[in-house]
């Protein structure tokens, strides 16, 4: 190749050429800049692309063989990280749900007009023959035996034992539980009664609106009452309270049963879908107006005027978490029953 040149001349030529090129380039020769650009774009880029096409699979295979353990460790670490993130996500969602539940519990208890203590269910009955739960508030926060307990949907039971820092709640499904309850009209009946009510001519009626809470995710029932200020004409309110009776539990997973004080009058008037709430009164364990549930079945006993009215509770007792103890002190005679 270099036969015509001696070794020293070749090396000298190389060195001198390099020095010349360096000098030209350092002085900012545009020809060299252009040559560099052409070389990079027109020559090296296609060659790099072709080389990459061949080398990349080999490189990946090599990496797969040589870095398998590292990749496995990295994958395991990432998997662990993903699991932690999922756990955090679940925690966050739980926190949101708990906040929503707390809000519902607080809203209901505050609507009743009594001071309440928010508590969390910390234990369930170990027996199949007891419907009780343990909550994490006790006498230190003013909780006393007999006080009604609600969750966001309605009444769930009453306090039966109180300790300084925890209490036992007898759930309404327990057969030993009983409370005075009243049945309200169904929403359709209310609407019908309002429509059929005589309309006063003068003076114009003043209208007040009250809301009856219902189970979760159901629209509240709005009962409208109207009255006039006139002394001569007064429109009577639709009678929304139907019957009063004693509501008793029938065991876990079964609906409550309502027994009427006046059995003869109940049969014809009670309809499925009617709202049941606490009746209140001196001898009652709970104040008036705590929603309990809705009538789901009315069965007339054969050969009798008595009817069996089954009430499904608003509260889902199997999913209890946050509850509210109403600091309402019932009549001590009623507590003892």
């Amino acid at each position, binding site marked *: *190749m*270099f036969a015509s*040149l001696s*070794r020293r001349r*070749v*090396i000298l030529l*190389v*060195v001198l*050429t*390099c*020095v*010349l*090129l*360096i000098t*030209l*380039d*350092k002085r900012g020769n545009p020809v*060299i800049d252009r*040559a*560099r650009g052409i*070389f*990079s774009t027109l*020559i*090296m880029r296609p*060659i*790099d692309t*072709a*080389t*990459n096409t061949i*080398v990349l699979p080999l*490189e990946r295979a090599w990496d797969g063989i040589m870095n398998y353990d590292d990749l496995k460790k990295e994958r395991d670490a990432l998997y662990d990280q993903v699991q932690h993130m999922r756990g955090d996500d679940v925690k966050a969602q739980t926190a949101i749900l708990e906040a929503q539940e707390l809000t519902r519990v607080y809203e209901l208890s505050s609507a009743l007009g009594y001071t309440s203590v928010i508590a969390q269910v910390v234990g369930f009955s170990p027996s199949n023959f007891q419907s009780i739960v343990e909550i994490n508030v006790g006498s230190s926060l003013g909780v006393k035996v007999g006080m009604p307990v609600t969750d966001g949907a309605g009444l769930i039971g009453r306090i039966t034992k109180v300790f300084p820092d925890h209490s036992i709640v007898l759930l309404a499904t327990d057969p030993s539980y009983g409370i005075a309850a009243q049945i309200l009209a169904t929403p359709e009946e209310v609407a019908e009664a309002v429509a059929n009510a005589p309309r006063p001519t003068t003076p114009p009626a003043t209208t007040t609106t009250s809301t009856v809470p219902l189970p979760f995710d159901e629209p509240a029932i709005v009962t409208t009452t109207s009255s006039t200020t006139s002394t001569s004409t007064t429109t009577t309110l639709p009678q929304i309270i139907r019957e009063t009776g004693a509501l008793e539990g029938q065991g876990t997973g079964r609906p409550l049963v309502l027994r009427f004080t006046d059995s003869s009058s109940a049969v014809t008037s009670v309809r499925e879908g009617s709202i049941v709430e606490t009746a209140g009164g001196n001898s009652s364990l709970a104040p008036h107006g705590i929603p309990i549930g809705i009538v789901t079945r009315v069965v007339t006993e054969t050969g009798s005027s008595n009817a069996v009215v089954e009430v499904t509770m608003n509260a889902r007792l199997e999913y209890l978490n946050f509850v509210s103890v109403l600091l309402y002190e019932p009549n001590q005679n009623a507590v003892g029953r």
Partner: protein
Amino acid sequence: MPRILFGPALRILPIGLLALSLQRLVFANHPVNDVKLQFVLAVVVAAGAVGGPDRGAVVGFVLGLLYDLSGTTPLGLVALAYGLGGMAAGYVHNLVSEPQWWMGSVFAMFGAAIGEVSVPFLGQVIGDGGWITPQLAVQIPIVAVAAGLMSPALMPICRWMVGVKRKKWKVMVE
């Protein structure tokens, strides 16, 4: 004309471009102890080890020039450094006329060390300083050893590239 076209001068270019491409795509992406192995330099010193100082210098010049063109170093800087490396590796032929592969490898290692260390020092001379650091003490041995290890595999290709054939010894029978 055909002799020029198919001669060694033309074979250097494709080999050099391929080596440069591998350097940019493979060796630049897989540093060893934070040191990028120099495949182009390994080709240069292997060519020097099989072809002698003059061929090593020319191959180093051409491949170094390609290196300069593809990068941002002043044109001629790496060409000069690699030329020196190739020439240094070629001095193995001053010891023996047909060196063993391991001798070629040792001289390739030596040439690679010269070539690699020349880049920062020549840069310092022309005003592109700042690369003479203690890191060179790690960098130079790794590049040199890697070139020495690669050179036995590269020697047959380089022998074809620079147009050198193995000498055949014949026993004279009286």
